[in-house]
């Protein structure tokens, strides 16, 4: 950007002159509105910093202090927020929404819904109407909030067993898609924990959700002569599915440890 300062050979002209350009306010107006506030429409539209969610107890969750752009204006939570929930359905993903407040962001401006957001390209964030989604949580079979932490842009279950999505002594011997039990946020990077009962020649293989491979060669996430547990990072398809295949009939348990929150929902 060129030098915006008023120069010695320019006239001093204020705003709204009928024929001359405003020189006095020119420098101030760089990335600022006429009232002096920051113009985030060009600089920081869609930004989200902090506001990481975590479970407090069975019917409350925290949002850490942070700042978020909602519909083109920036709002701040200056302290940790505690949100009370009620009326949850069992075994359901909930999406945490922030509504544009009149001042700072408070717990009263936070809501939750089982309705998934969609990504707004114009607002650069995940929205349901005018409300911006800033995180997710899941309820258990008794409609309580499951232990969880959002940190570093990742969602993690607090307890490994809460993420189990497949437990079987009759696994698939050919490539089979399974939904990992993640929220409806499109394609996700996921961390899968697996257990495979030990025995010689038993194996298990994985690939991303959109893979067209049969998972029978070493080009895939293939583990042979294994026993016990390990983890593999995969990419789901748009329906939050990955592919697996097990040979020689081991018992298999697959668990979603966590997933990377998508762009527009990460701090």
């Amino acid at each position, binding site marked *: 950007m060129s030098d915006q300062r008023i120069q010695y050979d320019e006239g001093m002209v204020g705003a709204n002159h009928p024929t001359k350009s405003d020189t006095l306010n020119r420098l101030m107006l760089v990335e600022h509105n006429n009232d002096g506030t920051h113009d985030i429409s060009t600089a920081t539209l869609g930004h989200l910093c902090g506001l990481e969610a975590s479970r407090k107890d069975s019917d409350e969750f925290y949002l850490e202090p942070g700042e978020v752009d909602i519909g083109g204006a920036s709002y701040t939570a200056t302290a940790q927020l505690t949100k009370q929930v009620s009326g949850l359905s069992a075994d359901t993903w909930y999406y945490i929404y922030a509504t544009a407040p009149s001042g700072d962001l408070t717990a009263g401006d936070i809501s939750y819904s089982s309705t998934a957001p969609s990504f707004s390209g114009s607002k650069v964030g995940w929205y349901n109407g005018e409300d911006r989604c800033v995180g997710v949580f899941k309820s258990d079979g008794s409609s309580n909030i499951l232990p969880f932490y959002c940190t570093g842009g990742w969602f993690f279950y607090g307890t490994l067993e809460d993420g*189990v999505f*497949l*437990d079987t002594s*009759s696994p*698939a011997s050919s490539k089979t898609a399974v939904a990992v039990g993640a929220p409806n946020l499109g394609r996700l990077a996921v961390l899968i924990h697996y257990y495979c009962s030990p025995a010689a020649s038993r194996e298990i293989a994985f690939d991303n959700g959109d893979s067209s491979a049969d998972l029978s060669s070493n080009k895939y996430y293939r583990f042979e002569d294994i026993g016990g547990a390990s983890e593999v990072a995969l990419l789901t398809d748009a329906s939050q599915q990955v592919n697996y295949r097990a040979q020689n009939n081991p018992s298999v348990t697959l668990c979603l440890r966590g997933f990377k929150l998508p762009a527009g929902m990460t701090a």
Partner: protein
Amino acid sequence: MHAYDPMSKELKGACDGAQPEQSAVWQAQGLTVVAGSLVPLEDYNYLGDALTAKTAVSFAADKTGIAADGLDQALVTVSVAGETPPASIEVLVGDTVESLALSAGEGTLDPISAETPCSIVVGPADTVAFKGGPLVIEAAE
């Protein structure tokens, strides 16, 4: 979603929500697939064609190590939980199935001994209806 063996009624698989491709795999294996929530396979069966919690059975020994001399013995007590426990239970002792009469859900197996060093595994013979054990008696020189 649950998958169980229609003959033995053993719960063979459970998954979170409807999983069409996994369901097709199980059906191809001859398993019966029904709706259901994620539950531990080791805790349930489909006896009576409905999800049923396995009956818990516990094993307690006066000692878990014996001398492999044919003389030293371990006494194993079997306890079956529930308000209406069965009158008897079949118990696997090593490679042998022993039918044990129960009184108020409890009974004691014949004394266990061994003439050579070995591990003797004690557990329910019917692992579809019962869960518990195994208890291991080590016979050493």
